[in-house]
């Protein structure tokens, strides 16, 4: 096809050229083919030559190899013969060597008891124990042979001595904790029963630690004492004291306590605590663990037992320790410096925490917390104690009535401020830089139980109690009672609420369940206020009663002349009441007059008395000796009046308070009058006095009716107790009263 195509498409000339190309190509290919054939032939001839040479060499080699084989056979035979010849001697030698070794060991054994004794003498216990432990097994194995048995016995005896020596060592007080550990370790290796050793070890450690504790206690107590002394002589000796403290506290580091210690800083104290007690305790615990609790798996029961022992041991000691620290901290009554205190406590806590980590199952965090409970309440108490006298002194120095109100505000503010201050101060405990503050549980408990319940709420309750106590104390300034009652009221209405919420806010307390409810506190406050107020009323009433009673008792009612003026005592009573009124008015609101319009004045009084009709004045003025009439008067009076509670509780208003006082006073007047006998003029004097009181007292009482009833009864009683009852003309009475 290619040819046909070429033929068809190409010109002749092209075809010719193409043909000549093809021819030249064919020729060159031919020549190439020829050269290749020649080359291959050459190589073939060379190979054939080599094969021929190899054939000739191999024939000679065969002979040489055969010879070599023969020689080797000969060598083997000779070596076997030599070996067999030496065999016997070698066996003998090795036996000899074995015997020698055994003999050496035996010698060591024979010398062992002496050696142990030597060790005891040299106090080189560990050496002795090591040698024993190495040989013990051999001895044990060959015990059945009599000679070994003797050695064994000797050894046992020696070891017994060793043991004894060790125990003696253990019992020595001077041994340091590390030394102790060694001893016990050795004893343990000697196969002493672990339980007994535990006990020995622990009891020994306990004595040591208790020594430490005692030292610390002395320190703490010294501090406490010094704190007390400090109250009196602190300032004078402050300069000296500081220097002395430096010197002495350095001495104290060497644990020997000087008899008279000067208080040292709480931080130092905690440091010393750590160096002595906590350090030792740590050492004891760790060595104990190392020794007795090395393999809890195999130990099983005994090790748990040991662990238990350790735990109780440590718990006991730590309790003591915490108590000691508690004493020391309690001595730090100068609560103004919270910062060092918190730092100190922080250190303390951290160290205890280290121990806790060492012994995972015992949580000393709780104990530490318990300490802080005590601490916090301590702080609170100190504050209370401070607060109470301060109030008193303040009151004592200035009791000017005008300042009462101002005074009250100051008092309440002071209370509020001191509580706030306290909360803020206690907040220092929750600052996150202290480790214990980080623990959520601690925070929770601290905030809830300590600060809120223990301090703030406790403070309020304490305050309430204190107020209540005032009700039972005699010889208290009545103004103070009044002031305190008002303070209670204020606290009840607002301050407590405010302070509690402030406290909650500061401490971020959200969960209110289980906390003391606000209303329990405020209720308590209110009750305290009520009681104080009642007591105030009673005291003041009693004072006025006393005056009235005396005045009635001491006057000669039978021999007195015609009344010309109101008796002076009535004026004194009135003055007294108006003084009380100003006092009360300064603190309490007005309150409302009951029933009758508040503008009931002297004028309305007449209409009131008129409306009482036959029961009132008209009956007296036209008084006849008729007893029937008299009792009618009394009974009618009683019909109209409900029973008057004389010492009834009062409300927190000015009028109610004064009404209470007036009621008490008038009832006294009534009872006193009933005990006397009057002449006509005596009766008239009573009449004048009663009118005078009525005229001026109405503005002080809430219910004028009560006043009227009581005064009427006074006059009625006087007329009953009168030999010739004859009342004065109302006009004259009014005239006399107006004059005086």
């Amino acid at each position, binding site marked *: 096809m290619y040819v046909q195509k070429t033929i068809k498409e190409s010109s002749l000339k092209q075809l010719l050229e193409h043909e000549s190309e093809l021819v030249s190509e064919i020729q060159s290919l031919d020549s190439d083919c020829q050269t290749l054939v020649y080359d291959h032939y050459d190589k073939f001839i060379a190979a054939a030559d080599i094969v021929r040479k190899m054939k000739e060499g191999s024939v000679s080699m065969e002979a040489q190899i055969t010879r070599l084989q023969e020689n080797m056979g000969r060598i083997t035979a000779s070596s076997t013969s030599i070996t067999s010849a030496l065999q016997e001697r070698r066996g003998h030698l090795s036996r000899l060597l074995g015997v020698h070794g055994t003999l050496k060991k035996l010698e060591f054994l024979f010398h062992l008891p002496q050696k142990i004794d030597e060790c005891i003498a040299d106090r080189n216990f560990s050496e002795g124990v090591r040698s024993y432990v190495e040989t013990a097994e051999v001895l044990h194995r060959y015990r059945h042979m009599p000679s070994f048995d003797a050695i064994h016995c000797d050894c046992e005896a020696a070891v017994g001595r060793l043991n004894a020596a060790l125990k003696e060592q253990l019992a020595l007080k001077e041994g340091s904790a590390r030394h102790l550990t060694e001893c016990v370790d050795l004893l343990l290796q000697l196969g002493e029963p672990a339980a007994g050793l535990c006990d020995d070890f622990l009891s020994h450690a306990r004595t040591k630690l208790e020594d430490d504790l005692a030292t610390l206690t002395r320190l703490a107590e010294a501090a406490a004492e010094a704190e007390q002394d400090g109250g009196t002589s602190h300032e004078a000796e402050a300069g000296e004291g500081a220097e002395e403290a430096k010197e002495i506290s350095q001495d104290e580091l060497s644990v020997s306590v000087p008899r008279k210690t000067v208080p040292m800083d709480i931080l130092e104290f905690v440091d010393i605590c750590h160096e002595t007690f906590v350090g030792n305790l740590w050492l004891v615990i760790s060595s104990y663990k190392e020794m007795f609790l090395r393999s809890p798996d195999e130990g099983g029961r005994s090790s748990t037992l040991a662990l238990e022992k350790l735990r109780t041991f440590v718990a006991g000691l730590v309790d003591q320790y915490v108590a000691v620290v508690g004493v020391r901290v309690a001595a730090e009554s100068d609560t103004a410096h919270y910062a060092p205190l918190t730092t100190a406590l922080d250190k303390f806590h951290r160290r205890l925490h280290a121990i806790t980590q060492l012994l995972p199952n015992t949580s000393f965090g709780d104990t530490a917390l318990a300490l802080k409970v005590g601490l916090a309440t301590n702080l609170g108490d100190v504050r209370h104690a401070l607060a109470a006298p301060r109030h008193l002194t303040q009151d004592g120095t200035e009791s000017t009535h005008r300042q009462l109100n101002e005074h009250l505000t100051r008092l309440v503010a002071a209370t509020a401020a001191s509580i706030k201050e306290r909360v803020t101060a206690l907040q220092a405990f929750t600052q996150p830089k202290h480790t214990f503050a980080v623990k959520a549980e601690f925070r929770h408990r601290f905030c809830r139980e300590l600060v809120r319940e223990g301090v703030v709420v406790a403070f309020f309750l304490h305050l309430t109690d204190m107020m209540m106590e005032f009700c039972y104390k005699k010889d208290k300034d009545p103004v103070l009672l009044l002031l305190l009652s008002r303070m209670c009221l204020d606290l009840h209405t607002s301050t407590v609420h405010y302070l509690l919420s402030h406290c909650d806010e500061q401490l971020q307390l959200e969960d209110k369940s289980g906390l003391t409810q606000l209303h329990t506190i405020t209720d308590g406050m209110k009750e305290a206020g009520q009681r104080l107020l009642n007591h105030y009323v009673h005291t003041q009433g009693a004072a006025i009663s006393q005056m009235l009673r005396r005045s009635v008792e001491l006057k000669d009612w039978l021999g007195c002349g015609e009344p010309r003026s109101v008796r002076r005592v009535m004026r004194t009573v009135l003055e007294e009441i108006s003084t009380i009124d100003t006092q009360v008015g300064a603190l309490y609101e007005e309150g409302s007059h009951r029933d009758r319009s508040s503008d009931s004045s002297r004028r309305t009084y007449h209409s009131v008395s008129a409306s009482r009709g036959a029961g009132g004045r008209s009956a007296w003025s036209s008084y006849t000796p008729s007893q029937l009439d008299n009792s009618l008067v009394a009974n009618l009076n009683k019909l109209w009046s409900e029973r008057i509670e004389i010492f009834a509780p009062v409300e927190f208003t000015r009028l109610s308070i004064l009404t209470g006082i007036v009621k008490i006073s008038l009832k006294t007047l009534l009872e006193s009058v009933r005990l006397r006998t009057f002449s006509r003029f005596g009766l008239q004097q009573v009449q004048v006095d009663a009118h005078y009181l009525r005229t001026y007292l109405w503005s002080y009482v809430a219910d004028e009716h009560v006043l009227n009833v009581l005064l009427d009864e006074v006059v009625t009683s006087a007329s009953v107790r009168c*030999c010739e009852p004859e009342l004065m003309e109302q006009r004259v009475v009014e005239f006399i009263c107006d004059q005086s």
Partner: protein
Amino acid sequence: MDDAPIIYGLEDFQARALAAHSAETEKINFLVGTQSLRRTNQVQLIEFDDDTSLVTKQTFEHPAGEVWRIVAAPQSPDMIATVYNNTQDYCGEFGAAIWRLSLEGSSSGSLDDSRSGGEQVEKLCSLNGASDVDAQIPGSPVPGLGSQAWSVVWAPENDSHLVTLVDNHIFYWDVEAAGRSAKIIGNVTVEGRGTVSLGSGRWYPHQHGSQVAATHGSSVRAWDMRTMKPTWCVEGAHTQLVRDLDFNPNMQYYLATCGDDCKTKFWDIRNTDQPLKELSDHSHWVWSVRYNASYDQLVLTCSSDQRIILSNLPSIASQPFGTMVDQEDTTKEDKEKVEGTEEGVIQIYDDHEDSVYAVEWSAADFWTFASLSYDGRLVINKVPRSVKYKQFMYAITS
């Protein structure tokens, strides 16, 4: 149901003197003395019949004056003593005397008839020893004043001994010949601020009745009548005046006082620093306090707040039948368990409408008591039955 109180009016007399008719152990009798400055006063013997709940009375005129205090002789039923204010001479002069009542049994008839009864108390002897003494002691600080502080107290169970308290003196009388004559065999003068006078007194019922205690201002003082020397004293028993006192009839050393501070207090006279107990149930002065003679846990108080309060105080009471003091601690719990009666107020009686100045247990019936208010209303009440039965049951079981 508890019995309703028996209310009895003294017919328009004021009254503050009430006594149990202590020598009469068959009938429930009370003696009342009236106070009137303008009429002839009376001593009324009021008999209450428990079965019929009827009140009969026998009236005796007491012309000497208004009666401030009345006591009945412990042995002779017809003998009484009164402290009176002499109204005859029209001046407030006080005196005391022993009188005889001509008793007629119940023949004086019912309430209505007795109005006409014109019997008088028959004066046996006067107890006015004050005049002798006054000569030696410069007179009372204020003229005519001391006269109100009279009190007369008969020794327990013995007609022949009696004391009177006048101002700040105590007179010890030996009454002879069935009251016909009496002489002073001892007297004490209480030193102190002049104006404080003795109030009411009581004989100490234990140790053969050799002591007398009396209120003195806000204190209670006691004297041994054999030596006329002071024995013990409760200083400042109340913050104000002490109004009355009474001894526990079954327990030695236990004393009750009441006063103007509205309180009733109970003391152990061996240790008078602190009261054993304090009651403050009244709202005004407490005028009188009385132990029940048999069941000493029942205590009555009356007050010018117009109330009478019956309290149950097992914690400071003996056992019903006078066992020893030192057993009290051990039996206290059992007692409360058995009785189930709670300590404190049993009942408040407010049948009075005026101040109640006197209250007395009946001498004949443990469960009945009378109270007298100033308006002349005498109320006879009984201990609630529930309390009574509990006490009774306990008495049987123990």
